[in-house]
């Protein structure tokens, strides 16, 4: 549990996000993971990212583990009931997956299998309680486990547009920490100045706070986020910076690297989302001096 130890010791930690394939060609995932060996503290694998059917996160995490990197998987209740979730947690432990990120699943109607049946047996808080119960040696029905798993389990905060959202998310995060969340991952930060007070607020929950660094790939993506997600606090100045750069791709990587450096002074770690540009992750780390 390298990530847990580092975060517990107050050392700045870096997590990279990588998706599993929609199919069985694992070459991109394995190559991207190999390129990050010894450079990040963990790789987080979303499960059915954005509601799109992919290879399961557990398999992706096992592959990442085989490349010598500590994995983390998303866990949520949309597609699995409490039996399936608990079985998967036991499987995750024996496959060497020590870190869990309990998230809210994407709406089924926004994914690529809109006709699927919703499960939603357990919510985020319930899942954290479930993990804690398994760690203590029994299942949710009260039966004793033959060997209990150990996990470093955290939770995620949703984007916040205004103070009302912030209060609601803060209260939800507090509930989740009370239920057993050992770290918090907050949404992408695009403007360190306006986001620092938010990060400081979440730090008051006394668990490590990890901020998301989202790799903007182009001006269009920056504009889209700025318009459609006011909670992103993405500034016009940042859009202009990317638009007027000689080499926009290099500039985007530099922006992400600078954000990692800036966040290093405020939070306990970062989670880098490259959104399909996982091959650029080493360049982002270079840019951040990591």
């Amino acid at each position, binding site marked *: 549990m390298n990530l847990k130890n580092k975060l517990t010791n107050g050392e700045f930690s870096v997590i990279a996000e990588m998706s599993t394939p929609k199919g069985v060609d694992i070459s991109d995932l394995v190559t991207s993971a190999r390129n990050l060996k010894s450079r990040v503290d963990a790789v987080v694998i979303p499960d059915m990212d954005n509601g799109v059917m992919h290879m399961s996160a557990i398999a992706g995490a096992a592959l990442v583990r085989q490349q010598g990197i500590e994995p983390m998987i998303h866990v949520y209740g949309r597609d699995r009931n409490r039996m399936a979730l608990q079985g998967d947690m036991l499987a995750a432990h024996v496959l060497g997956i020590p870190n869990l990120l309990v998230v809210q699943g994407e*709406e*089924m*109607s926004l994914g690529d299998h*809109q*006709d*699927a*049946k*919703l499960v939603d047996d357990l919510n985020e808080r319930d899942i954290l309680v479930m993990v804690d119960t398994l760690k203590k040696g029994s299942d949710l029905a009260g039966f004793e486990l033959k060997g209990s798993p150990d996990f470093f389990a955290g939770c995620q905060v949703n984007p916040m547009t205004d103070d009302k959202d912030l209060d609601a998310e803060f209260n939800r995060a507090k509930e989740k920490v009370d239920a057993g969340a050992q770290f918090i991952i907050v949404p992408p930060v695009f403007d360190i100045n306006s986001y620092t007070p938010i990060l400081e607020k979440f730090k008051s929950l006394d668990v490590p706070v990890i901020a998301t660094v989202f790799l903007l790939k182009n001006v269009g993506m920056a504009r889209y986020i700025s318009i459609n997600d006011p909670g992103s606090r993405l500034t016009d100045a940042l859009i202009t910076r990317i638009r007027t750069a000689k080499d926009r791709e290099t500039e985007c990587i530099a922006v992400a690297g600078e954000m990692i450096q800036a966040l290093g002074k405020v939070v306990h770690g970062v989670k880098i989302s490259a959104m399909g540009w996982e091959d650029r992750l080493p360049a982002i780390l270079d840019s951040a001096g990591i």
Partner: protein
Amino acid sequence: MITAEQKPIEEIIEYIAPYDRILLVGCNECVTVCAAGGRKEVGLLASALHLHSLKQGKTVDIKEITLERQCDPEYVEELVSLIDSADAILSMACGCGVQTIAGRYKDKPVYPAVNTKFMGASESQGIWAERCKGCGDCLLGVTGGVCPVARCSKQLMNGPCGGTSNGQCEISPDTDCAWRLIWERLKALGMEKRYIEVMVAKDWRPAGGGGPRRIVREDLT
């Protein structure tokens, strides 16, 4: 109809404990038919709550009214003249009625006095059984008028599982195997061919997979 059962009296007492003036509202529709929340049940619950409060040395003012339909804003409007004299509302309607009241009288706490159970039909005097899940894509036309979504414990779509025994479901000898019923109906109707037609995986979007459902009838709005 929508069926319901009265909540345990202890739970109802706990809900209303902080209040001195209660407006107890029944409904003249489904919950009347299934004897859970009609005029008669309103009277019985009011008496039980009065007795309890007297035992506690407390006086609680309970006003009783039974609306024609609690799920209809038109009828819920009838509470306007009573609402100011109540600290809280106790509704004996299904969840639809409770929410219609809560949506109309936003500054009054509303508590349910019944548990809404299912959409069902009466099997015999005093017995109601689940018949419909409201899946939004009715299959009864191809299953001989017996619903596998509501009546098969596993919601199987292509025949019974291995748990069927002597025509009954493995969950209880009192529960008919829906696929036995479907087979018997199709056979009686000479529609055996329907039984072997394979149904593809069900589309659950009409069942609410895409979130809360609405019906908009442009001709009526």
